[in-house]
């Protein structure tokens, strides 16, 4: 008996897993009881160290008054969400507060309701929603050229939540047997008036848009339109399909009518051109037997600037910067800053991009650990950005991510003229 106890203790000491193997598992079903309401949230701390490129045009535009070689930013995010459901109706609200502090911009805070809408669901086939929400149309990972209604997502962090627009939507769903398994139609109305979606486009318009979704021959297909209103008319389609269990292809195609683009000519004079443009995306997602996920996407941005356009813009900033240094006049730099918000400062301002993302799930048997690297290539000027990252989600509700950014390119290229050469970021997020 004593010998058995000693043997068990030795086993417990050296092989705790063996002792655990006999553990009985319990499932307290009270935790599955449904409540009509739900509250939750997310809090995040995100310090970022930027190593700046003093010769870059966007550095000169941003830091001309306050030169520096590095910038430390302290970012915080606080999200609260709640819902209430009764019968066929429900409401959902999600608020977002962003906090930022740096020695350059000092502290600032912005709070917004990201989502806030009511839902009526009289049957599984019908749903009506009214309020502030996002639609997230498109199949691309980094970009969505057919996402005509939402604010653009960050291609360097595509899973970040974004603020919605106030709208009314409806879903009608039908299922079938045969090659067409699902049909759904989602019409959307987006009003734009003073204080209602007033950053969407031209004021005093009611915008109509819609999406038809089909699951046809195991392929997701969407046909999307947005009628002429606050923005010019546009239409598009997307698709996604698994070729094998581990290989998916997807694509998007968008046609935008009468797109008006402000630009600087080579004399530094502000011009505008109106043209019908086509944007598109083709991508694959592949998973190997050893859990390496590859996402490769090519994006053509019909609304983007050419390499020559960008060169004119960077030259304009340099002239402004030189002028400021010799005379203290900031007029040209102010114009350049306005142009940045008007298109030159977009996250993907040029025409052709390639993104390759490799992520390895749980290497060396380290559970919940995912190292990844993302390569972003600008095909127009051959500049690039490499972003390695380490993600750990092993502690319940806690997400830890360490990320670096290596931003490379010659003069007059997109990544060569970014304000920073390197970026180091740590993100700790907790869900509750």
């Amino acid at each position: 008996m004593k010998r058995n106890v000693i043997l068990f203790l030795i086993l417990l000491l050296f092989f705790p897993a063996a002792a655990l193997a006999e553990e009985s598992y319990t499932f307290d079903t009270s935790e599955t009881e449904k409540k009509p309401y739900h509250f939750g949230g997310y809090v995040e701390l995100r310090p970022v160290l930027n190593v700046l490129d003093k010769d870059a045009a966007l550095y000169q535009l941003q830091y001309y008054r306050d030169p520096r070689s590095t910038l430390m930013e302290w970012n915080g995010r606080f999200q609260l969400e709640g819902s209430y459901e009764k019968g066929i109706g429900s409401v959902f609200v999600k608020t977002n507060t962003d906090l930022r502090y740096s020695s350059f911009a000092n502290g600032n805070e912005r709070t917004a309701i990201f989502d806030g809408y009511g839902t009526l669901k009289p049957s599984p086939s019908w749903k009506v929603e009214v309020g502030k929400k996002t639609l997230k149309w498109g199949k691309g990972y980094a970009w969505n050229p057919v996402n005509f209604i939402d604010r653009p997502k960050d291609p360097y962090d595509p899973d970040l939540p974004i603020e919605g627009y106030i709208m009314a939507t409806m879903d009608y769903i039908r299922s079938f047997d045969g090659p067409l398994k699902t049909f759904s139609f989602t019409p959307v109305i987006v009003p734009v008036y003073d204080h209602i979606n007033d950053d969407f486009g031209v004021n005093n318009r009611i915008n109509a848009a819609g999406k038809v979704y089909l699951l046809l021959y195991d392929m997701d297909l969407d046909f999307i339109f947005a009628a002429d209103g606050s923005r010019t008319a546009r239409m598009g389609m997307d698709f996604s399909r698994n070729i094998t269990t581990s290989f998916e292809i997807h694509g998007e195609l968008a046609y935008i009518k009468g797109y008006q683009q402000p630009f600087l000519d080579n004399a530094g004079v502000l011009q505008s051109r109106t043209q019908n443009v086509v944007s598109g995306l083709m991508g694959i997602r592949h998973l190997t037997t050893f859990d390496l996920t590859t996402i490769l996407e090519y994006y053509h941005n019909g609304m983007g600037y050419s390499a020559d356009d960008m060169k004119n813009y960077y030259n304009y900033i340099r002239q402004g910067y030189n002028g400021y240094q010799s005379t203290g006049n900031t007029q040209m730099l102010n114009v350049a800053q306005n142009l940045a918000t008007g298109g030159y400062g977009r996250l993907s301002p040029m025409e052709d991009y390639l993104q390759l993302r490799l992520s390895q799930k749980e290497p060396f048997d380290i559970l919940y650990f995912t190292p990844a690297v993302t390569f972003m290539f600008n095909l127009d000027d051959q500049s690039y950005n490499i972003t390695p990252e380490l993600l750990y989600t092993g502690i319940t509700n806690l997400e830890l991510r360490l990320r670096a950014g290596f931003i490379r390119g010659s003069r007059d290229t997109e990544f060569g003229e970014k304000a920073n050469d390197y970026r180091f970021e740590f993100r700790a997020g907790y869900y509750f």
Partner: protein
Amino acid sequence: MLKTIVFLMTLLTAFPVYALDGTALLKQVDRNLNPESYDMYRKLINVEPDGKKKEFTLFSAKKGVDKVAALFLAPASEKGRSTLRLGDNMWLFIPNVGKPIRITSLQSVVGGVFNNADILNLDYAAEYDVVRVDDSGKEYLLFLKAKNKNVAYDQIKMWVDKGKKLPIKVECLTEANMLIKTLYFKDHKDFGGGIVRPAVIETDSPLYKGYKSVMIFAKIKKRSFKDEVFTLTYMPNLESLR
């Protein structure tokens, strides 16, 4: 002559096994595990070699042979995520991402030893053909082969309790006979409505040495759903089924 006698005797001894309809037996196992259409709750526990655990709670709904949906209820970081399977098609909906993305059966939305095919499992008979049945006294050993290349495991060996017609152990293998994981079916429980089945499935894998994942079942009940519930457009609304 001697060869003929040996052949006939071999045939005679083998007859009881060949007489058994393997496909019918597998279908019986499927029905004993779950009704054809049902909803249920599950807890998934990933256990690391040092004993550290991570738990997930899911609500699941299934209809017919090829429609399954699951909604994560806990922990808070996963709440609201849902997965959908329509035959060979699988999608994951993450509330922050806001749109369903296609996933594959070999990936795992929860990490650990269970993959998406284990979480969104269809009937075995819907995905596998019975190629052989061995009778070893108390148990049957079923050798299953995937019906097509889209199925997560190319081969399965299933040990079935003869009396209860329920699985005891399942080995999942590659085409090259490499063991991917073993599922152990434990703790038979009466869920009501005539459903008596194992309430716990444990799994381990030579690919994850020392790790273990456990699936605990609760509140399995027969239920019918409209087909429209199992669509991409409905994925953000699965909570309303509970």
